[in-house]
C-alpha cells in the first residue's frame, strides 16, 4: 500500500514536469551538455556537475536538480562515444566499455554498438530510479555496514578485477599494471599524516598525481603513437547503419541488462565508489556468466551492454545514500550534495520530514532524464559515427590537441602536461609488451581509497587484521578476492576438475 501511494505521488510529479516546457527544454539542454562533457576526453561528469552548479544559483531547487541530474546522466553515458569510436574512454566510467566497443567499431558495427549502449544506459538509469522509489531505506541500511576495512577490500577488489579482465594473455600482467597504478597513487603527501612520499621535494607532486592527465595520457597517447607508426586499425563506418537496436536483441540480452543494473545500483549505493567500478564488476560478471567467455574483448555486444547498463544504474544507486543519509555515493553525487545545500535542501535522514516529496521529484527527474538521453542518443549517434569517415592522419592530430587541452584545462596547470606525456609514453611501451592499461588507471583512481582506508582501519583496530575475518561483509569481500586470484592458477582448475570427478564417481 505504501509503495502504491509513493508511485501515485511519483506519477503526479512526473506529469507536472512533462507539461512544463521550460523544464523540458532545460532537461534536454543539460543532458546534451552532459553527453558532450562525457564524450570529450578530460571533461568528466563530475566536472560538468561542478561547473553547472555555479549557474544554477538563481533557480529553484527542483529546477536546479533537473539541470544537474540531466548533466550527470548525460555525462556518464557520453563517455561511451569516445570509448567505442576511438578507444579513448571519455570518462573512467566508460573504460570497460572500450574493451568490446572498440573492436565492434573496427568490425564496422560502431553504430550498432552505440545504439545498444544508448538503450542499455537508458534501461540502467530506469532500473536505478525504480530502486530509489521503492527500497531506498533498506539499501542505505546495508550501505552502513561498510567501515574502513570494507572500503579497502572493495577498492582492492576493483583493481584486481580490472586486472583479471583486461589481460590479453597472462593475467599477471593485468595485476602488475594494477599495482603500478596503485604505486602512482601513493605519490604525494599522504592523506592521514601528511608525510610526503616520492615527491623528491617538488611542490607540484605534493598534492599527488591528478587522475585526468593520467587517464588521458595512458589511453590517448598510445593511440596517437599507434597512428604515427601507421599501423592503426581505423574503425570503419559502414554505409547503411541501423542505430536503433532490434527489439529481439534487447529481449535476448534482458538477463544481462537486469544483472548489470542490479550490480550498478548496489555499487552506487556504497558510499565513495561509483560508476567506474560498477562498469568493471558488471563486465566481469557478464564474462563469468557467459557461455562463450572467450569472445569477450573481441567485440561482444554483451560486454558493451554490461558495462554501460551498470554505470548508468549507478546514478540511481548513488542517489540512495545521498538522499537518505546525506552521504554521496559517487564523486559527481558529492558535487550534487554541495548544490543541494546551496538551495537550502539538506539531504539526510530528516529529508523525508523536511521535504517529503523531494525524493520522488528526484526520481521523476531521473526517469525523464533517461528518456531524454535515449532520444538524444538515437539522434546523435548517427551523426557521431560520421567522425570515423575522417581519415586518421587528419583525425588523430585533433584528438592529440584535445588530449593536451583536456589535461591542461583541469586547474590550468602546465605540470599536468609534464605528467601526461611521460605517463603516455610509458603506457605505450606497456601496451606494446601486452600489459593492459585500464588496471593502471583504475589503480590511480582507487589507490588513495585503498591506501587511506587500510591505514585508517589499522589505526582503528590498533594494528590487527582480525576484523577482516570477524566482520561479515569484510569476510565475503576477502573470500571473493582470494577466489578471483586463485581461480586464475592452473592448479585451481585442475583441483576443481579432480573434485568434480571424485564427486561423480561417488555418485
Amino acid at each position, binding site marked *: 500500500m505504501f509503495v502504491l501511494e509513493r508511485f501515485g505521488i511519483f506519477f503526479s510529479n512526473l506529469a507536472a514536469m512533462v507539461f512544463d516546457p521550460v523544464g523540458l527544454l532545460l532537461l534536454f539542454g543539460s543532458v546534451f551538455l552532459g553527453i558532450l562533457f562525457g564524450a570529450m576526453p578530460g571533461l568528466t561528469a563530475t566536472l560538468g556537475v561542478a561547473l553547472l552548479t555555479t549557474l544554477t544559483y538563481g533557480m529553484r531547487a527542483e529546477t536546479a536538480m533537473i539541470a544537474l541530474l540531466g548533466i550527470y546522466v548525460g555525462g556518464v553515458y557520453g563517455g561511451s562515444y569516445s570509448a567505442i569510436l576511438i578507444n579513448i574512454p571519455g570518462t573512467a566510467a566508460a573504460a570497460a566499455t572500450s574493451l568490446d566497443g572498440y573492436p565492434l567499431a573496427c568490425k564496422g558495427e560502431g553504430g550498432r554498438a552505440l545504439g545498444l549502449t544508448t538503450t542499455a544506459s537508458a534501461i540502467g538509469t530506469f532500473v536505478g530510479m525504480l530502486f530509489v522509489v521503492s527500497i531506498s531505506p533498506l539499501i542505505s541500511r546495508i550501505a552502513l555496514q561498510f567501515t574502513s576495512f570494507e572500503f579497502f577490500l572493495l577498492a582492492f577488489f576493483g583493481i584486481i578485477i580490472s586486472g583479471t579482465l583486461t589481460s590479453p594473455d597472462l593475467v599477471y600482467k593485468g595485476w602488475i599494471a594494477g599495482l603500478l597504478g596503485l604505486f602512482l597513487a601513493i605519490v604525494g603527501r599522504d592523506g592521514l599524516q601528511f608525510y610526503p612520499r616520492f615527491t623528491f621535494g617538488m611542490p607540484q607532486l605534493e598534492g599527488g598525481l591528478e587522475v585526468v592527465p593520467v587517464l588521458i595520457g595512458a589511453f590517448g597517447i598510445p593511440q596517437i603513437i599507434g597512428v604515427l607508426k601507421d599501423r592503426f586499425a581505423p574503425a570503419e563506418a559502414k554505409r547503411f547503419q541501423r542505430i536503433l537496436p532490434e527489439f529481439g536483441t534487447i529481449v535476448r540480452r534482458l538477463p544481462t541488462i537486469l544483472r548489470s543494473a542490479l550490480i550498478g545500483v548496489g555499487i552506487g549505493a556504497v558510499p565513495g565508489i561509483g560508476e567506474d567500478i560498477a562498469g568493471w564488476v558488471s563486465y566481469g560478471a557478464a564474462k563469468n556468466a557467459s557461455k562463450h567467455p572467450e569472445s569477450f574483448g573481441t567485440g561482444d555486444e554483451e560486454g558493451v551492454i554490461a558495462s554501460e547498463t551498470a554505470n548508468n544504474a549507478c546514478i540511481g544507486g548513488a542517489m540512495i545514500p545521498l538522499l537518505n543519509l546525506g552521504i554521496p555515493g559517487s564523486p559527481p553525487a558529492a558535487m550534487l550534495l*554541495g548544490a543541494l545545500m546551496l538551495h537550502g535542501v539538506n539531504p539526510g535522514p530528516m529529508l523525508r520530514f523536511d521535504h517529503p516529496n523531494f525524493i520522488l521529484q528526484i526520481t521523476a527527474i531521473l526517469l525523464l532524464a533517461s528518456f531524454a538521453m535515449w532520444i538524444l542518443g538515437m539522434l546523435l549517434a548517427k551523426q557521431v559515427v560520421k567522425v570515423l569517415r575522417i581519415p586518421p592522419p587528419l583525425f588523430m592530430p585533433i584528438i592529440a590537441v584535445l588530449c593536451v587541452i583536456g589535461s591542461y584545462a583541469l586547474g590550468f596547470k602546465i605540470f599536468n602536461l609534464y605528467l601526461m606525456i611521460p605517463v603516455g609514453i610509458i603506457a605505450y611501451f606497456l601496451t606494446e609488451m601486452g600489459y593492459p592499461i585500464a588496471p593502471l588507471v583504475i589503480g590511480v583512481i582507487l589507490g588513495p581509497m585503498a591506501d587511506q582506508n587500510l591505514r585508517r582501519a589499522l589505526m*582503528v583496530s590498533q594494528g590487527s587484521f582480525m576484523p577482516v575475518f570477524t566482520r561479515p561483509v569484510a569476510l565475503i569481500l576477502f573470500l571473493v578476492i582470494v577466489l578471483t586470484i586463485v581461480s586464475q592458477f592452473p592448479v585451481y582448475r585442475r583441483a576443481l576438475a579432480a573434485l568434480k570427478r571424485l564427486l561423480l564417481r561417488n555418485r
Partner: protein
Amino acid sequence: MKRIAMLVVLVALLSVSLVFASGEREYPSRDITNVLVWSAGGGTDTANRIVMAEMAKTLGVNINVVNVTGGVGGSVGMLEAYNRPHDGYTIAGLSESIVTAGVQGGWDKRVDVWDYYIIGGSPLVLSVPANSPHRSIEDLVAAAKSRPGQLRASASAAGSIHHLNLLAFEKGTGTSLNYIPYDGSAPAQNAAITGEVEMVITSIAEQAQLIRAGQLRPLGVLVPQAFTLGNQTIPSAFDSVPGLTAHLPIEQAIGFAMARGVPEAQRSKIREAFHAAMQTEPVKNFGRDNFYVLSGASGDEAAAIFDALESNFAWTLWELGAARVDPQTLGIPRP
C-alpha cells in the same frame, strides 16, 4: 589650427576635472567585488552571498561574488584579492581556515594585513553513537581515562578545526584518545554511526540531521553557551569539565575581510553596512536555518579572534609535521 589646439586643451581639462569630481564622489560609486576563496555552494559562500545581498541594499551598489579557489588555505583567492588596488572596491570572502595559508607556503605575510568582519559559524559539538553506553561528558572522560590512547575519536582531516578542538579537548580533560582522521565531516560522522569510532567532533550544522533523527547523541557543545536544537538543549561541555576553558573555544569564523591599506573612511562605511545587514531578517533566518551562531564582530575584536586562530593553527600544524614553513619565520607567536 589654434582653435583645434584650444579645443583639445579644453576637452583635456574638462575630462581631468571630471575625473577629480568623480573621485570626490561619495564611496561607493561603483560595484564592489567579493573575491571568495572557497568554492561555490560551501558554507562560506552561502553566508557571504546572503550578507552581501543585504549590504548592497545599504550601500546602494551591487556586490558581485566571484569564487577564486585553489592553492593552500585559500591562498590563490587571497592573493588575487590583496593584489587588487586598496580602494575599497575589493572584499575577500573567507573563513578561519585561511590562517593556515602562511605555514603551508601559500602566503608570505601574517594574516593581520586584513581587517575582518565575522558573520559567525556553527558551534562544534561532541557526539557519540545512539547505542553508546556514554550518556554524558563525564561518562566519556571516565571511559577515556580507563583505557588511555584507545577510545576511538573521529574528526575531519588532521589540522582541521575539528581536529584542533579534539586536541584541546584532550588537553583540557587530561585524556589521550585514539584519533582517527577522515577526509571530511560526513565520513567522520558516518564512522560514528557505523560504530567504527566511539565519538565524533564536527559542527552542529553538519550533525543536525543525524541528531534530530536520533542516530547520534550529542553530549556537549564546545562553546560556553548551551545550544537549542529543535526541542532538545545540548549543554556546554564547559559546565561538566571546567578545565576546558583554558584551551577552548576554537570557533569557526566565517566572514569577509578588507585589506588594512584601504582608507579608514571607506572601511567604516563597510562596517556600518555590515552591522546593519547582520540585523536583517534574511540573515537572521539564514543563521537559524543553518544552525549558526551569528557573531557580527569587526575591528579589534575580530582581529584578536583571527590572531588567536592563526597562532593556534600554525603551531599545531607545525607540530604535526604538516606545515612547510616554520611559523617562527613568519613571526607568528606561540599560542
